[in-house]
């Protein structure tokens, strides 16, 4: 049986095999690619990648911009970057993650858990977060405000006041709709019963999962990985709750699979989940640890982790803004022009759906090779019959294509990123 899954920034096909009325195997097919690495990036001047790569994706293009600038900066032996520029980049990245999560909850997950899409609850906070990005970076979507050496924009105290208000308004929205009167508490809460006793769209969704008996569905390898270290996310991997910090990028491998255009990815030959659940397991977020203790790496934990991360990022970003020293330069011109650089640079950034890895090889400032590994590749590409991909494994045992779609989309799929 084949089901076309739509509204995942494109489409994918799930090819199911049923045995005794349960899914025994599923192949995931992504049907097209735009050949961005081979046809659009190759041969271009390095800085053009800052304009091209946001167009890999319309919902997480900002993460691609930041992964690009960091990969280009890694091509330099020495490069000075002010803390102000680095912090501004992290702030705008967080704004993008937050709007992704709101859209996923109210447009993707709501309909899969028995509600209709609530378009305005998705667009209202997303618009505010987009305004916050635009205040710093000029516009959203599709800006290229990060440049090798920093960011192009100068930010004033007046802009800071606005950014705080955008965040305050979004936190208020979270506390009105997602979890009534409860946002900061989510960061320290260590018992999901406390959350389930609250009013709000999130506790309602979680309680519905439990009522339906779905809270343990969608379990996979219980292995998590995150590469994009910043002031909030820790880098590392976690096998169930056992954390390892050192994860050199050289052990990341891509393989072509037989289905479609999504290459599968492994770390030291194994499949890992990326995304908010992975980040929470590596950060050891108390609430998610409790969910994981009860329900493992199920859709319950996955959905909770993404909603919880929304609050975490809103609150952390306010603190991050207050660390900005506006007297520092936004941009420091590199000593060597990029036209003289022949080198390879690699970067990792935590995008909404998980770790995003970029690798660029330059020769006299011209792109020879550009490799992109997206979070959706980690979670949603197929594996081999001996070692299934993360979401393939998660869908085994589901009793219907509809349940499989819920499990599939609990990973938050981005079809355009996966195939780029």
């Amino acid at each position: 049986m084949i089901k076309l899954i739509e509204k995942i920034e494109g489409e994918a096909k799930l090819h199911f095999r049923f045995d005794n009325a349960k899914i025994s195997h599923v192949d995931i097919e992504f049907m097209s690619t735009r050949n961005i690495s081979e046809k659009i990036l190759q041969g271009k001047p390095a800085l053009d990648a800052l304009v091209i790569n946001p167009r890999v994706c319309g919902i997480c293009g900002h993460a691609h911009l930041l992964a690009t600038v960091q990969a280009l900066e890694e091509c330099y032996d020495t490069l000075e970057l002010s803390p102000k520029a680095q912090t501004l980049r992290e702030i705008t990245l967080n704004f993008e993650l937050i709007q992704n999560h709101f859209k996923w909850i109210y447009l993707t997950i709501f309909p899969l858990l028995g509600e209709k899409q609530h378009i305005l609850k998705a667009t209202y906070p997303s618009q505010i977060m987009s305004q916050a990005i635009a205040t710093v970076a000029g516009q959203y979507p599709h800006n290229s405000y990060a440049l090798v050496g920093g960011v192009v924009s100068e930010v004033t105290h007046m802009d800071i006041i606005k950014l705080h208000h955008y965040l305050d308004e979004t936190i208020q929205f979270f506390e009105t709709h997602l979890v009534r009167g409860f946002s900061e508490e989510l960061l320290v809460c260590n018992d999901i019963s406390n959350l389930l006793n609250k009013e709000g769209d999130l506790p309602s969704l979680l309680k519905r999962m439990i009522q339906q008996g779905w809270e343990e569905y969608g379990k996979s390898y219980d292995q998590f990985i995150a590469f994009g270290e910043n002031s909030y996310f820790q880098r590392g991997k976690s096998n169930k709750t056992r954390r390892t910090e050192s994860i050199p990028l050289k052990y990341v491998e891509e393989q072509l699979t037989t289905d479609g255009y999504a290459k599968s990815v492994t770390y030291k030959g194994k499949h890992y989940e990326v995304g908010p659940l992975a980040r929470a397991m590596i950060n050891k977020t108390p609430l998610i640890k409790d969910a994981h203790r009860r329900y493992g790496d199920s859709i319950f934990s996955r959905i909770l982790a993404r909603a919880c991360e929304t609050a975490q990022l809103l609150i952390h970003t306010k603190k991050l803004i207050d660390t900005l020293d506006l007297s520092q330069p936004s941009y420091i011109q590199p000593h060597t022009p990029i036209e003289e650089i022949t080198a390879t640079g690699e970067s990792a950034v935590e995008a909404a759906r998980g770790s995003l890895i970029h690798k660029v090889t330059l020769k006299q400032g011209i792109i020879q090779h550009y490799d992109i590994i997206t979070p959706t590749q980690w979670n949603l590409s197929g594996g081999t019959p001996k070692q299934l991909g993360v979401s393939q494994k998660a869908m085994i045992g589901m009793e219907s294509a509809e349940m499989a779609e819920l499990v599939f989309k609990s990973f938050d799929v981005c079809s355009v990123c996966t195939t780029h």
Partner: protein
Amino acid sequence: MRILWLSGVACNGNTHSFLNYPFMEQFLKDFTFISHPIIDSEYTLEEVVQQTIPCDILLVEGAINAHFTRADVPITQIILNYAPIVQKIVTVGTCATFGGMFHQSYAEPTTGLHFDQKMPTDTFAAFKAKTLSISGCPIHPEVLVNTLYSIKNRMPMTLDHYLRPKAYFAYTVHNGCVRNEYFEYKIDNHQFGNLEGCMFYEHGCQAPFTHGSCNKILWNEVNSKTRAGQPCMGCTEPTFPKTNLYATKKNMGIPQHLPLGVAKRTYLTLAGVSKAFTIDRLEKGLFDD
């Protein structure tokens, strides 16, 4: 009015830019999507591509290629099914209008609906009279939405030769940039990361010759690329993307592309006069005494 939002070879940037339209609640009372990349609708994508469902407006996002399919039906076929029955077709974004970012994605031609960059194409020429182009990478949500309302209210629109509404595309991105004074007096010492300076002379800003209202209606209601200090990349034009985007191409020290409609001799005369003077206020930092 009923809208089919169809995606070709796209990144979905236009879809997400559209979701930033501030009066979405009002818009959704006046328009229904029979299919949309994100918003749920009465019909599945499969139903929409396999049948011809009555609707009033066809929106095409993303570039068009003969081999590209949606739910296993070639996008060219889907367009040819719906183009005859709709009142209007709107190309949403530079890819759907000219080919844009993905023009080079495939060996086979990957173009806009009626234009392959600057050249007109034949495949859908029968429907050119009912098409409007909203170029931009991505589109500005107000430009798209107000164009849809113009269609709904049967308001006559003056279009340029690329079928773009002049109400938005007769302006240049240069109109309204807060850095205009540095341009006017030819002060060419812009550094990235500063409030001051014009990016046209050294840093590749295409605003003076790019059609768009970015500095008139602003982005996300608050800002624009050039106000923030990023050069305009010319994203509404058939030539997007060019190369070496952060640097101004020059011939003998003079920018290769001059402001729209300004003859070289005019430009050089004005430049010569401006450069003869020093204006202290514009040579200093904006907040300096």
